[in-house]
């Protein structure tokens, strides 16, 4: 974890007047899986395109394994594998022919090409289809060929742009498994708008919206943010709302229906126990008491909705 494999410094990219990516900085280290999370149009794909050298940033610098992507594009590109949203395939070639071609344009020496292609076919589970034309493969297999193409030259960083979009659930599970295998040997940058994908695959998450980095931390810390701080409560004969409000630690009470309430409380003072006692002694007829688990979606929405205003005030 000493020097970062890929380092992006204050990347900015404009399309006309629209700022797609604004002052984005991050690093990725050896053996890490970094998830890029954001709604559609947040600037994920633009960032991926910049990292892979398909798009030059208007400002900022990208260093891959010590090589600047603008000044030494050839050396830098030799260390990255890129799978865009649409897998870049020559559909008129067979799987093996195509991977041979990819091996060659990635400067793998002739003597190693066969081994490299065999290895990657094995790893991506393509052994059944080596002679089939890519055009005749299912979307899931095409995606595998796309991944194979990205890792054939054993790059240090593999960049995957929404690798599971448009696949059926079984294919999604298979591709995720494949990504996990890849992560054992390569650092992976993954962009997605599917939250559980980040939870299952990534070590570190970066949430980006409107071209800005809103959150960057480990999955563990993200889960902490998901800790519950509200209770769902159903009482058949409820007391006054004020009475509920006066519990130690309760911040506010939402009235959902006549009998249903949501209690927000301070994470340090959980009022559950007190509430139970009171409910029994005062005969509120407790029907339901559920600690609400914040889903990743909630946290995500919270971060996306809150942060822009914060930044707006700061700027």
């Amino acid at each position, binding site marked *: 974890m000493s020097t970062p494999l890929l380092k992006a410094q204050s990347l900015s990219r404009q399309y006309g007047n629209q700022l797609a990516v604004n002052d984005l900085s991050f690093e990725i280290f050896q053996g890490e899986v970094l998830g890029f999370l954001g709604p559609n149009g947040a600037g994920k794909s633009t960032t991926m395109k910049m990292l892979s050298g398909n798009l030059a940033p208007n400002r900022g610098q990208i260093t891959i394994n010590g090589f600047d992507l603008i000044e030494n594009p050839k050396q830098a590109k030799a260390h990255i594998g890129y799978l865009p949203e649409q897998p870049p395939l020559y559909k008129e070639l067979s799987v093996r022919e195509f991977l041979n*071609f*990819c091996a060659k344009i990635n400067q793998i020496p002739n003597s190693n090409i066969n081994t490299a292609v065999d290895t990657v076919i094995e790893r991506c589970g393509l052994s059944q289809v080596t002679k089939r034309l890519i055009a005749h493969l299912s979307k899931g297999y095409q995606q595998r060929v796309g991944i194979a*193409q990205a890792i054939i030259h054993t790059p240090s960083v593999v960049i995957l742009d929404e690798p599971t979009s448009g696949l059926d659930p079984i294919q999604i599970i298979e591709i995720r498994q494949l990504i996990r295998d890849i992560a054992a040997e390569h650092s992976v940058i993954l962009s997605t708008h599917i939250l559980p994908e980040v939870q299952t695959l990534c070590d570190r998450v970066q949430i980006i919206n409107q071209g800005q980095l809103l959150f960057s931390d480990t999955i563990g810390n993200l889960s902490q943010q998901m800790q519950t701080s509200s209770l769902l409560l159903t009482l058949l004969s409820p007391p006054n709302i004020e009475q509920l409000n006066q519990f130690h630690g309760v911040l506010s009470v939402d009235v959902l229906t006549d009998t249903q309430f949501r209690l927000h409380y301070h994470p340090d003072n959980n009022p559950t126990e007190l509430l139970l006692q009171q409910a029994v002694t005062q005969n509120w007829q407790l029907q339901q008491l559920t600690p609400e688990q914040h889903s990743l979606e909630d946290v995500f929405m919270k971060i996306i909705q809150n942060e822009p205003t914060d930044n707006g005030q700061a700027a």
Partner: protein
Amino acid sequence: MFTLARYELYRLFLSPLAWIILALSQLILAYLFLTHIDYFVQIQAKISAIPGAPGVTELVAIPLLSNAATIFLLITPLVTMRLIAEERRNDSWPLLISAPLSIHQIVLGKYLATFGFFLVLLTLLMLMPLSLLMGSAIDLYMLAASFLGLVLLLASFTAIGLFLSSLTKQPAIAAITTFTSLFLLWIIDWAGNSQADGQDSLFSWLSLLRHFEPMLQGEIHSSDISYYLIIIVTFLLLTIRHLDSERIN
């Protein structure tokens, strides 16, 4: 670069387009070849008495190559249109861009592949006049000069086509613009001709045809060769430049 050219050529021959173009152009050229021979056989008796009369090279081989140039003008856009425009449309372009290749390697690779295809076409074409060797003597030097002219002409067509294909995402648009540009450069000397006789105007200097005709007559001028080389290099550089700047804008 050569790897890229080899695979590009291979992919071209995987598509029916290449075979259809080869087959149909051979059909037309063979028919033209036969009509020229037919005509020559008809008038052979009349002109054999005249001293210094045009021979079989002038009456069969050269008109055939001249016709071929026109046919290539029609074919080139169909072959060059797919070069870059189709890669964009199939989303396979990032494959080349994110590979450790420079833009000029990509451009030259694609150029060489297409040029290689046209050399195949030309070789098949040249077999026709060369087959006359079986029954008659032909002026090989004159034929070689015309061949060189045709090679340079095709090389320029390809460079122009490649550039126009790099500008768009739609192969059909690339084809139309290429055809229009080539045709315009072909006929642009009509304006030049009407202006001043004997004097070379800018328009007639620009004409692709004007530099090709002397070579058909067996005259090789270094100015004509440099004209074609300038066209080729200019359009290749424009392509590289355009693709480079595309990443930035």
